[in-house]
């Protein structure tokens, strides 16, 4: 993988929400150009990891390094510079309902980069095409789109500024199998066409096997194993085995 250059590094991250320990001394590296998938049951802190990388949450202890800079010590303006290299695809797309598809995708181009509208329209059309959408959607509001379309628009918004890193939070959850597969293909395509580094959080094992170069499993606030999809599939760890086979028999309690 590109000579294994590390682009994201979490160092001994801990995070509590109230009395609940969500992340317990987690360390994780992501190499340039790879797709790392973080798997684990709902509510174990997968999205919390993503939010730390995006600088949306600050750890109680530990360091977050993105592209050679430590996020937790930066001012907002500096974090914003880093965010130029980063796109985030939210679980439910998180499109701004008051804005049109065009205004959503072009949000940063218009507001932050001061790009002329005519130029932004061209960029947005290109990005929509890249995520497999037609440009007749430009003037629609998010509420008029289907779930799958919203996710694609969310992806188009994330890639509008040509990021080097894309963070995906549950990209296939709530989608039908066909739309899910299309999203998986998109993630692969982004890696191939744009050479981006991706971190994907999911509990959809089919998607994980398809898009991952490496998989990390998180349980009880800790990373209990990392490896290639093949290694994870063959893992003898009882927790990993139970999770990837989707079994109720095993050490994890069924809540």
């Amino acid at each position, binding site marked *: 993988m590109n000579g294994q250059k590390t682009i994201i590094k979490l160092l001994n991250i801990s995070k509590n929400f109230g009395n609940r320990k969500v992340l317990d001394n987690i360390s994780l590296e992501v190499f340039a150009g790879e797709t790392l998938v973080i798997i684990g049951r709902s509510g174990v802190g997968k999205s919390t990891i993503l939010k730390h990388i995006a600088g*949306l949450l600050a750890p109680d202890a530990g360091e977050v390094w993105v592209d050679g800079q430590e996020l937790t010590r930066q001012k*907002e303006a500096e974090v914003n510079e880093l*965010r130029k290299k980063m796109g985030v695809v939210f679980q439910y797309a*998180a499109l*701004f309902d008051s804005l049109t598809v065009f205004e959503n995708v072009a949000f*940063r181009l218009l507001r932050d980069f001061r790009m002329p509208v005519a130029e932004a329209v061209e960029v947005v059309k290109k990005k929509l095409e890249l995520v497999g959408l037609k440009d007749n959607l430009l003037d629609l509001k998010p509420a008029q789109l289907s779930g799958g379309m919203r996710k694609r628009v969310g992806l188009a918004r994330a890639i509008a500024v040509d990021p080097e890193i894309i963070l995906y939070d549950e990209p296939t959850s709530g989608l039908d199998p066909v739309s899910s597969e299309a999203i998986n293909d998109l993630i692969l395509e982004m890696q191939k066409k744009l050479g981006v580094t991706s971190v994907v959080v999911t509990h959809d094992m089919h998607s994980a096997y398809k898009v991952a170069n490496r998989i990390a499993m998180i349980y009880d606030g800790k990373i209990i194993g990392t490896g290639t999809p093949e290694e994870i599939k063959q893992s003898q760890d009882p927790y990993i085995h139970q999770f990837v086979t989707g079994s109720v028999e095993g050490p994890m309690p069924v809540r």
Partner: protein
Amino acid sequence: MTNLIQRFGKFLAFFIHDMGEMVFLTIGINRWMFKKPFDGKLILEQMVKIGVESIPVAVNTAFFTGMVLALQSGYTLETKIKGVSQFIGAVVSISMLRELGPVLTAMVIAGRMGSAVAAEIGTMQVTEQVDALYTLAANPVKYLAVPRFLAFTFMLPLLTIFADLIGWAGGLFICSMKFTSSTIYIESTRSSVEAGDIMGGVIKGVFFGAIIAIVACRQGFATTNGAEGVGRATTNAVVFSFMLILISDYFLNAVLIALHI
């Protein structure tokens, strides 16, 4: 009984904690207000929503308040002290300008737009749109709170002046129908109203606008727990606004009197 006291204590603790958070938000708003980019379009949008679209409810409130003021004061003056109904104009206009215009307008706007702002920002919070703003390099205080703050603090005094006029007209209508001639009403107003009465109401409007904006934005940003949380944020925004408007009205009055305004 102890249960009731406990609940009140909890509410008080929550209220005080929230007040602290609101101070932080106020500082944040002031810090971001003067930073680029200047969101002229967003500010204008909010001014239309908060100001222009609130005119009908403000008019309705003010007109009927003016009418009931004239009716009640006219009736009281006539029956209790014979032959002083020529003061109805003074009673209505001073009450409207100093108290009822600013306070009732603020209450109506808190109910109509404070709740709407809390619900909108609250929904954006629980659907991760606020997080999305951060990732797109737009600070949510700058993008959401500043335009609303400016719109509320600018539009509420304007609505107050408008309400004063409408309320006065309502009083005129009832007075001329039931008690004295409109000339006496107008003359009574002219001889009693001073510039300070108008100013006082406008100053109150500015403060009340700021209160509604900060309370509503704070409740929106603090929303958790999905739809239920949005409901709670909306309720809190209105209840806290009402409380703070009434409390600050007393102290503003005291200050205005001390300053001879």
